[in-house]
């Protein structure tokens, strides 16, 4: 084992101090019936670093790069070069949850800055220091809303079908055992939005919250003002599920309707996190001030040196705070069981937001929007392709295709293009629909090539690849 420093002499000397004759005795409290003999486990033979690195390079080479037009919850953005150079420093990478605040001021200050940036982007009062990912963040937001607002003991949350389908499944996974009813609201087939009429039948019923995705899973912008005001009028809380890059361009949840959303959450990946087959990403969660003590997860606060130590001018410093909410203090009554979060990812995100700045992030959002508009225009020119929903969109759009979507996607893959996300499996009415996305990274040439490939595939009508 390559990372153990002990010499045979060390071992001998240490056993002597412990007072046992041989290392075997270290395990003398494990019943014999449970002890494995050497060689009992069938594991591959060990590798040295050179062999291990070669193995990984061989595997990575199998993952052939495709020009990415898929979004659906993870987005191919440019990441400024310093982000991972700095976030990957050993002092950040190999520290633990900052329990000893005085020896963790680096991590703690970055987290405090991260919280400030997320609160600013979402237009809300406070943010926690991350959850696992966007889907689990929505799960926690739903639980939080139910804790905070349980009218007449009814635990019901309105969860529109325009929310990411996997997010909805994750919400179901984490709320199922707690007797929370999730009401799925249909979407309008013309606009791809949550129809206000679908809400009306709940106006006389009790519910804890309405979830509003902005943009929604189809890329479409929801009428957030009307939805927010309707929800507040009927004494529900509003949970916004938002894309953080879009917030440089779109109105933040805190300014939706006349009172603003109460909670906002979402996937942090677009803020400097590589796609990496799905993780690690991070979830963010922000809220209004009255809900702060209902928040799950770690929260960093600014404080001062203790008065009796700091003298007349105590220095400011940072510490984990409001820990009475958390599992290690509150145990069975904690707001959540979360312990490890995605700390390093939020450090990268803070760096990303800093390097992009207000102008850079806004430009990235605009470029994504403009590229997707341009892509949709190009693809719509191909006979048989049409835009599925007649609504404004941010950086994703649903297209209807004249051939089975899976066939088209397979043919595109063979041409080096990841063409989008097939909506049919999650939306039976949208079997012929493809969700496409063009981030700021997509070039004119790549979009032109996509259009040419699609044209070719659809014109061939057989959908098979050129031999």
């Amino acid at each position, binding site marked *: 084992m390559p990372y153990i420093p002990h010499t045979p002499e060390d071992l001998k000397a240490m056993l002597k101090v412990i007072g046992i004759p041989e290392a075997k005795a270290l395990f003398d409290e494990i019943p014999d019936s449970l002890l494995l003999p050497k060689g009992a486990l069938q594991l*591959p033979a060990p590798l040295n670093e050179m062999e291990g*690195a070669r193995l990984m390079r061989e595997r990575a080479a199998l993952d052939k790069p495709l020009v990415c037009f898929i979004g659906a919850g993870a987005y191919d953005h440019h990441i400024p070069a310093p982000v991972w150079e700095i976030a990957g420093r*050993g002092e950040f990478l190999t520290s633990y949850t900052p329990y000893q605040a005085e020896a963790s001021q680096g991590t703690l200050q970055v987290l405090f800055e991260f919280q400030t940036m997320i609160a600013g982007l979402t237009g809300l009062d406070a943010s926690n220091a991350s959850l696992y990912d966007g889907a689990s963040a929505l799960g926690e937001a739903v639980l939080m809303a139910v804790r905070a607002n349980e009218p007449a003991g009814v635990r019901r949350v309105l969860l529109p079908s325009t929310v990411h389908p996997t997010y909805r499944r994750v919400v179901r996974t984490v709320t199922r055992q707690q007797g929370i009813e999730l009401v799925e609201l249909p979407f309008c087939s013309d606009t791809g939005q949550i129809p206000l009429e679908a809400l009306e039948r709940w106006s006389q019923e009790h519910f804890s919250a309405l979830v509003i995705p902005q943009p929604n899973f189809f890329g479409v912008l929801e009428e957030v003002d009307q939805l927010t005001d309707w929800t507040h009028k009927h004494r529900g809380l509003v949970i916004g599920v938002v894309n953080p890059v879009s917030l440089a361009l779109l109105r933040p949840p805190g300014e939706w309707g006349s009172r603003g959303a109460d909670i906002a959450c979402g996937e942090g990946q677009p803020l400097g996190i590589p796609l990496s087959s799905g993780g690690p990403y991070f979830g963010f969660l922000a809220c209004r001030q009255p809900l702060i003590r209902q928040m799950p997860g770690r929260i960093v606060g600014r404080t001062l040196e203790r008065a009796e130590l700091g003298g007349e001018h105590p220095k400011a410093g940072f510490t984990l705070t409001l820990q009475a909410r958390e599992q290690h203090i509150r145990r069975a009554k904690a707001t959540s069981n979360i312990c*490890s979060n995605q700390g390093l990812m939020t450090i990268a995100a803070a760096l990303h937001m800093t390097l992009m700045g207000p102008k850079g992030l806004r430009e990235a959002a605009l470029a994504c929007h403009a590229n997707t508009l341009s892509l949709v225009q190009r693809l719509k020119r191909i006979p048989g392709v049409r835009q599925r929903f007649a609504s404004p969109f941010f950086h994703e759009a649903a297209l209807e295709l004249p051939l089975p979507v899976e066939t088209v996607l397979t043919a595109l893959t063979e041409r080096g293009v990841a063409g989008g996300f097939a909506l049919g499996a999650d939306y039976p009415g949208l079997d012929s629909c493809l969700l496409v996305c063009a981030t700021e990274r997509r070039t004119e040439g790549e979009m032109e090539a996509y259009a040419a490939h699609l044209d070719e595939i659809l014109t061939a009508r057989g959908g098979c690849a050129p031999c």
Partner: protein
Amino acid sequence: MLIFERSRPGRRAAAQRLHLEGRIDLPARFLRHGDPPLPEVSELEAVRHYTRLSQLNYSVDTQFYPLGSCTMKYNPRVCHQTAQLEGFLQRHPLAPAASGQGVLSCLYELQEMLKEVTGMKGVSLTPMAGAQGEFAGLAMIHAYHQARGDHNRVEILTPGSAHGTNPATAGMCGFSVREILTQPDGDVDLDALKALVGPKTAALMLTNPSTLGVFERKVEKMARIVHEAGGLLYYDGANLNAIAGRTRPGDMGFDAIHVNVHKTLATPHGGGGPGAGPVGVSERLIPYLPTPVVVYETGSYRLQGGDLRPDSIGPLSAFMGNVGVLLRAYLYLRMIGEEGLRRVSRFAVLNANYLAARLAGEGFQLAFPQRRATHEFIVTLQRESKEYGVSALDFAKRLLDYGFYAPTIYFPQMVPECLLIEPTETESKEELDRFVEAMAAIRREAAEHPEVLRTAPHRLPVRRLDETLAARKPELIWKPGGGSAG
């Protein structure tokens, strides 16, 4: 100084400028008024600010970090480096499986290796942390009982020494928690277990070795008692480093377990995450595993979702959990193999027992001196507290001055004024000896100048911080010109 205080209107890291044609096709009601409030700094200012902040941290790369139950071992750089190869990083999670045979093959093999290491029959890699693994485990147990029409199993039994995540998870899964007594020798009291177990028992949650730093010697009997009563057994894998390659939770009779890869499998903790908490299960829980799982069929690897696993508790993440973390764990296991795994536990336990013996030799009181320590052990400072008026917290803060991160303190709660110390296998004898010298020196200071401890730390970027003030008047975000939110 905060990054916001370095901000100057109009300044930017101009390398991130984009050439825009400025097309925007959105109604004004959707648009934000003005720019978002992010800092405006140059690239150098950003790099310098965050580099300097990093230098305020203690970390495994810079300090001995004997944080009990957290297994702060060395994180091999090659794992970190190769998990970030371009092929792995650029792949979209929803790209076709054909374009991801590299990453999927690694994940599949990791699943298989974890089955072998834990002795479980099925594994799902998706939980993104230990606590989410626990959630998956209890949710599966819940689903199992429900499927059998066994609706009255509403209780989780767990020793009082359990990690806080155990009862918190039980709460999230709608169970109530009953605490089992622990005997003075550190083992669970079997009579207490027998008295509590019954038709309401959904499961026993157990950490073994326990957080008391000892192996539950009667674990097989416990498994029998719980199974005979119709309950299942959940294994908290936080302390797997102590038994890796030596004995397996599956062989002990557990039905569900999680592995903290950021502990035992040497992936970095990143200031609190990301980790990963794969779950392993016995035969009867396989149908309930969280999705997706990686399968190998007709010569290729792919993810299998809920459509083919109708009894699954469902997904826990938007995609496939913390893939990048799992890749690091994969290479680590490939590099160490079985022999390496057995050496990990041997030297982790050796280091803990050596450190315990040396500290006892210096007059420190061990919580369980009659027991063999596992990979960690508890020192109780009850005596020092009484004689010198210094607390475990004071000791911890003073250790920081000596250049060591502090052990876990005040956990487990049943041992007063305790330090839970876990050296890990990657520390050398010399480093352990230096720690012993520091502890002895602090003890002398406690006797002669206790105020030095009470006012510690003295050599860190800040003096001891006021946590009460932080909680009473929460200031959770920066605001121009001061002021607070909360």
